């Protein structure tokens, strides 16, 4: 009885390990996109003592997550209300924002990804939280993002702010 039980436990452990390895070696598009968002959050965040060269490097690296024709529509009353079209303009806006704020910590605590049947485009509903240096209140915003698979990478093609409350 004990030997049989031990075999069942070992088999279950092997199956669980195999499932985990498959997830690591062949991740689903949803998992890849969530990982991309986590990387974007890291690149967008910066501390007060970040070197100028590091700022420039991270901003340039950030541009690799957006498509060349990316469109960003921001409508946050009291903060920013503008549209940005094109990756270059987005990078310029990001550099300007970094100079405007001393420190920023961005996180994406909730990401819901819906991949299209052809697995070439995807939509993500995202919650963004940001801790801005000098502000007591936590900034929370919902975003709707469109992504497209270009040259094997998932790139953001459109970002739009969504009103949580009507």
């Amino acid at each position, binding site marked *: 009885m004990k030997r049989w039980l031990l075999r069942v436990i070992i088999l279950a452990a092997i199956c669980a390990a195999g499932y985990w390895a498959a997830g690591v070696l062949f991740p689903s598009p949803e998992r890849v996109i969530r990982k991309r968002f986590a990387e974007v959050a890291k690149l967008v965040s910066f501390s007060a003592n970040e070197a100028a060269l590091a700022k420039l490097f991270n901003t340039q690296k950030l541009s690799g997550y957006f498509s060349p024709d990316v469109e960003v529509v921001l409508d946050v009353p009291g903060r920013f209300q503008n549209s940005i079209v094109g990756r270059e303009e987005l990078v310029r806006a990001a550099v300007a924002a970094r100079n405007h704020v001393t420190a920023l910590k961005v996180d994406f605590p909730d990401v819901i990804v819906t991949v299209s049947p052809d697995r070439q485009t995807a939509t993500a509903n995202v919650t963004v939280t940001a801790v801005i240096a000098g502000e007591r*209140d936590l900034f929370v915003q*919902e975003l709707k993002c469109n992504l497209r698979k270009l040259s094997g990478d998932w790139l953001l093609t459109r970002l739009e702010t969504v009103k949580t*409350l009507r």
Partner: protein
Amino acid sequence: MTCIEHRHPRHSVEAEKLFHLLWRVVGAPQDQPNVMACVIWPPSQHWRSLNRENDSTQAGSRKPSPPWWRVALIGRDPRVTFIRLTITVVLIILIRQFALIPVRVKGISMLPTYKDGRFSLVNRLVFVFHSPRRGDIVAVRLRAGENVMLMKRIVGLPGETVEFRDGELYVDGQLIPEPYLKLPSDWNEPPKLVGTNEYYIVGDNRSMPPVYHEHGCAERWQIVGKPL
């Protein structure tokens, strides 16, 4: 004389000897087949100490007790510990998923009712038995998930018109007293009709400009529960 003998399974040999000694003392014959015995339960202090000595002296028939660090780590019986741990984890998951959500308040929009950094629990089940009411503080989820929620107070119910004039709340043209407001406010917001399945929510700290304060109509499905 018909008597009843009752022996507790943990009675030690010494206890039995003492009993028989007492029995001899009271003058009962030794060859009586049935002896009226006292029911030793709950055991007195004397019996307990005798049993303890007996447990320690009868080493040959009992297993040595495990070291204290092993007992602290996995308990006297690892199987029982494992079962208890599994039940505890399952209960925590079920409670977290269906009943109570631990939350930490971040931000100042609900001052002074809820301070920044305060811990609380959101009760998911409260609105199972009744609909949200005016004055209820609620946790409102965003579309993408529940890891971040808004904590606001309901000031307008479905179908009502809500407006702010000089910092005061008016619902359907009637002034609504708000005793929970402790900070000054000078808000002026135009009338807004709350939808049939919506609730108007706003924070208690209206000393900040309304443009920096998240407020408006939340749909019923967005209301997750009520903080304790």
